[in-house]
Structures are given as structure tokens and as C-alpha cells.
């Protein structure tokens, strides 16, 4: 029941976060210069009557808070409004663009987690060995490597020199798994390299301190095999900061994939964000931010629950 109460409080807090984010986005798009009606009407903007009619129609001349309330009310019912520039609904656009982004993000997270855990264990268990130094150095380098710079290398070597992968473009899953995976291989590699480096370093340093704990010595003195000690005794207590960062990366990845999506011409949510920002297509921008904030909040809610499963001490305090 402690868990349940904690979960509810937490959920309410996260809901508040989403609300504040949506409010801020809404106000920002209002505050920043650039009137969507200009975009809509083009040269006809100077026609005052027409302009006011459109503003009336879009509800743009009502008080700010009323506008926000309406937006929120509709949003709760799954209506995020229509794009000013195309006649599409925001939700339609989002549905179109989300699959590529989500696929990329999920695969990147999966691969980097699966790679980072054994690498970190290897590194931490034999800390200061050659293997450890190689792993630490490589991850240090990869962290300093900007994604787009890395993308340039990869495209040059794998797409242009050797033609292993297409340099740009996206094939949806409906085209078959093979072509789909090939089309996202390079951006995926960029993401995985960076994330693996971050996770490896994080887990390695926590593992190293855990491995010095008395309970590890105790486990060793029981004569348990090394893999058992690493997996059962050391990993779990060392995984907390890894998991926190892992959760945060979900948010960062959805929003941060912009650059890779642009470079590799992927129809993702990041590209959608940029396009609509440049076109002053506020409702779409708001929709994108809202989706990102909600997914971030949800993932982190799940991470919190995972936290309390992993650490019984958290469970008791109901944090």
C-alpha cells in the first residue's frame, strides 16, 4: 500500500509536469514573434476584415487563458487541432511521424543497454586492466564525438565507400524488416555508440564502488562463481543511476533525434518539429512538445516503479 500511495503521488506530480510543459509551450508560441495568420493568409494579411475573420475562426482573439483552456479541453479528448499550413490534423501528422522516431529510439536504447552492461562489467571487474583501459578510453572518446560528426564518418565509410547501407531515407516496417533495418542502420549506429559510451561509463563507476562493498567480499567468501557475484550481487545495487539516466534519455532521444532525422532524411517527429517551427505552425509544435513531455513523464514513472522493485529500501520508505 506504501507503493500504491507513492505511485499515486508520483503520478499526480508527473501530471502536473505535463500540464506546466503544455502551458509553457502554449505561452511561448504566443509570446514569440510571428503570427500564424500571416502564414495562413500570405499577402492577403493586409486585408483587415479577412484577417479578423480568420482570427475569430481560430479563436485567436479570445483571452489567452480561454484559448489555453480550450486547447487543453480538446487535447484531453485527443484533438490537438489542425495544422495551419496543411489541412492535416496534428494527430494525423504525429501518427505519421512517430513510428520512425519510436523505432529508432527503442532500438537504440535496447542495443546500447545490452552492450553497455557486459562492457561495464568487464571493465569494472578487471578495473585498471588493459581491457578496462580500452573500454574507458573508447567510451570517453565516443562521448566527445558529436552525433552529426559521427554521422558524417559513418555515411562516408559505410554508405559511400562500401555501399553497405543507404546513406539517406527511411523504409517503413511494412516494406519488410530487412530493408527497414538497413535504412535506419546508420542513424541507429550513431545513437547506439553514444548511448553505450554513456551507459558503460556510468555503470562501470558504480560497479567499481559496489565491488568494494563488504557484501561482495562476503559473497566471494561463499565460494560463488564470478558471474554469479557480478550479476546477482553487484549489478542490481549498481544500476540505480544507470536506470535514471536511461529514463531521461528517452525524453532526450525523442527530441534530440532532430539532427539525425534531418541528416538521414528520416520522417520522424524531430523533422516534424523543425518544419513546423520554421513555418510558425504552432499547433503542430505544441503537439510535438506535448507528446514528448508525456512520453518522458510516462517512461520515468515506469522507471520509478522499477526503482522500487530493484531496491527494497526505497519500497519501505515509499519514496
Amino acid at each position, binding site marked *: 500500500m506504501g507503493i500504491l500511495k507513492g505511485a499515486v503521488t508520483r503520478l499526480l506530480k508527473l501530471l502536473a509536469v505535463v500540464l506546466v510543459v503544455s502551458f509553457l509551450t502554449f505561452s511561448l508560441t504566443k509570446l514569440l514573434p510571428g503570427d500564424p495568420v500571416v502564414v495562413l493568409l500570405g499577402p492577403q494579411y493586409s486585408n483587415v476584415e479577412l484577417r479578423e475573420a480568420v482570427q475569430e475562426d481560430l479563436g485567436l482573439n479570445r483571452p489567452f487563458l480561454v484559448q489555453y483552456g480550450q486547447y487543453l479541453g480538446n487535447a484531453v479528448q485527443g484533438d490537438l487541432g489542425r495544422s495551419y499550413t496543411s489541412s492535416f490534423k496534428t494527430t494525423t501528422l504525429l501518427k505519421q511521424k512517430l513510428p520512425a522516431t519510436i523505432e529508432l529510439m527503442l532500438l537504440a536504447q535496447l542495443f546500447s543497454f545490452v552492450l553497455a552492461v557486459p562492457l561495464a562489467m568487464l571493465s569494472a571487474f578487471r*578495473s585498471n586492466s588493459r581491457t578496462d583501459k580500452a573500454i574507458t578510453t573508447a*567510451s570517453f572518446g565516443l562521448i*566527445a564525438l558529436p*552525433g552529426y560528426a559521427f554521422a558524417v564518418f559513418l555515411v*562516408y565509410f559505410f554508405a559511400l565507400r562500401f555501399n553497405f547501407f543507404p546513406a539517406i531515407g527511411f523504409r517503413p516496417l511494412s516494406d519488410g524488416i530487412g530493408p527497414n533495418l538497413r535504412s535506419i542502420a546508420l542513424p541507429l549506429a550513431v545513437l547506439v555508440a553514444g548511448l553505450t559510451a554513456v551507459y558503460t561509463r556510468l555503470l562501470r*563507476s558504480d560497479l*567499481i564502488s559496489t565491488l568494494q562493498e563488504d557484501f561482495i567480499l562476503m559473497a566471494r567468501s561463499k565460494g560463488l562463481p564470478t558471474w554469479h557475484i557480478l550479476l546477482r550481487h553487484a549489478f542490481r545495487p549498481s544500476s540505480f543511476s544507470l536506470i535514471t539516466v536511461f529514463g531521461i534519455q528517452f525524453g532526450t532521444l525523442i527530441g534530440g533525434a*532532430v539532427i539525425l532525422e534531418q541528416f538521414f532524411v528520416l520522417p520522424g517527429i524531430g523533422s516534424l518539429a*523543425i518544419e513546423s517551427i520554421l513555418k510558425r505552425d504552432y499547433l503542430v509544435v505544441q503537439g510535438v512538445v506535448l507528446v514528448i513531455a508525456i512520453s518522458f513523464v510516462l517512461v520515468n514513472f515506469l522507471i520509478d516503479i522499477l526503482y522500487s522493485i530493484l531496491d527494497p529500501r526505497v519500497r519501505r520508505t515509499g519514496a
Partner: protein
Amino acid sequence: MTDLVSPTDGVAITPPPPSTESGRKSKKPKKPGALGVGGWVAAIWLITLSAGALLAPWLPIDDPAKTDFSVAKNNSSPFTAGHLLGTDNNGYDIFARIIWGGRVSLVVAAGVLIIGMVVGGTIGLLAGFFRGKSEAVLMASVDVFLAFPALILLIAIVAFMGADLLNVVLGISLVSIPAFARISRASTLTYSQREFVLAARAAGASQKRILVREILPNVILPLLAFGLLVVGIAIVAEGSLAFLGLTSTETISWGGMINGGKKPLQQENIAHTAMIPAVTMFLTVLAVNLLGDRFRSAFDVKDSAL
């Protein structure tokens, strides 16, 4: 604790990757302040770049925005006559542009470091010292901020406010402030409980005096350590904007150069135009991170403090 460098492109400014020296004490602990070979190379690289950037107008290099018609074609390879690193697709000298591009990185690095540290540091210091409502507000805004896609915010700011360097610096600084604030708050909290602060309190020192004399000097170190990491991120973030073509094409920057190199790379199979600025940026961020790492181990700033 969280991680600073987003592999996607570094705009999420959340706390940093652990230093190599963390955890077990390494066998031969470096002397405090010792840079090591890597550290020296990094320092020399950064000093050279900064000097080049500062002195660019007076250096005997080509005009970075002048097409060299004497060379047969644009995008000529490195080591062609008169162009150490070749020319780009406008026929501009890449070497000169790398040096000039360093100016933007330098301005961004310094600007973000100063604004982020001063504004974020102060907010965190006050929140951590006076606790109460200001702290609650700070922590709540950090929560909100984390859920807010930073890069999109940055793009929006630049897109709406105009893409001049000042707005870029302000935008990146804005995005970095919550992280600075959080770190400064955390250090303030720990130091407020230390004996010397309690002693000062007991001795009747004023709040202001305690804050400025006892706490601030101790908070500065972790803040600076974090600042060094942010410098790397800021450089990458500015590059991202330029790479997306959102900053002014008049401004010479490494990100813009990589962006300009995209076309030759993807269409004509010419790599050096994009590769040279990409490598330069990589080495620069690497050097900054390395120095940050050395800094943290020399001053024994715990990663957990970040």
C-alpha cells in the same frame, strides 16, 4: 544522478559521465594538478585554437569568404597548392574557415559558461541556502525542464528570435541554467551542514557573510567542473543549430561547415569538406572533456556532486 552528454547531440544538459578516476583509487594517483600527456596535448590544442580564433583577422591566412578561382575546381583536396586543408564547395579556404570558425565556438563556450554559472549558480546557491519555497520552485522547474525537449526549445528560440550569435548564446545558456542551478544547490546543501559553516553560524556570522565567505568558495569548484562539461556541450549545440542550417550562413562556424559539406559528401562522394570540421569539433570537445576530467580528479570533485 544523470548524464550530461546526450549522445544524440548534447543539448540535454543533465549531469555528467563519471570520470575515469572515479571509484577505486587508481594505482598511481596523479599528483594534484598534474595534467598527464593527454592533458597537455589537450591544453595545447585548446590554447592554439583560442589564440588562432582571437587573432584570426591578423593572421597570414586566406580570406575565409573569398573564392579561390585559381584552383581548378571547388572542393579541392587538402594539400592542393596554397590550401593546406583544401577548399570547400564555394572554393573557400578550409584552413582559414576552421580558424575563423573557432571564434564562434569560443564565444559560445565563454558566453554559456559565464551566464550559466552566474545565473544558474546563484539560483542554486540561494535555493540550497534558504531552502523553503524557493527551493521547491527550483526543483519543480528542473522537473519540468527535464520533460521539455531542450533541443526543440533551442531551435524555437533561434527560429523566432533570429539566428544571430547573441541569441544562440542566450538560448544555450537558458537551456543550461537549470542544470547549473541543480548542481549548485546540491553542493550548497552539503556545505551548509559542514562543521566550518556551523561554526561560523555559531560564531554569529551573518547569513550573507556565511553565504559569500564560507559556502560560495566551495560551491565554485564543482560548478566549474560541471561548467567545463557544459562548454563541450555548448560547442556541440551551437554546431547542431548551424548543422541544421538555422544559424546565419554569414557566420563561419564548424557546424555550418559540416552542414555545407553534407552536399559534397552525399552527392559527390567528397568527404574532406565535412570531415575536417567534424574532426576539429570532435578533438575540441574531447580536449575540453579531458581537461574537465583532470580538473575533477585534481580537485577531487566527486562525480556524485555533479
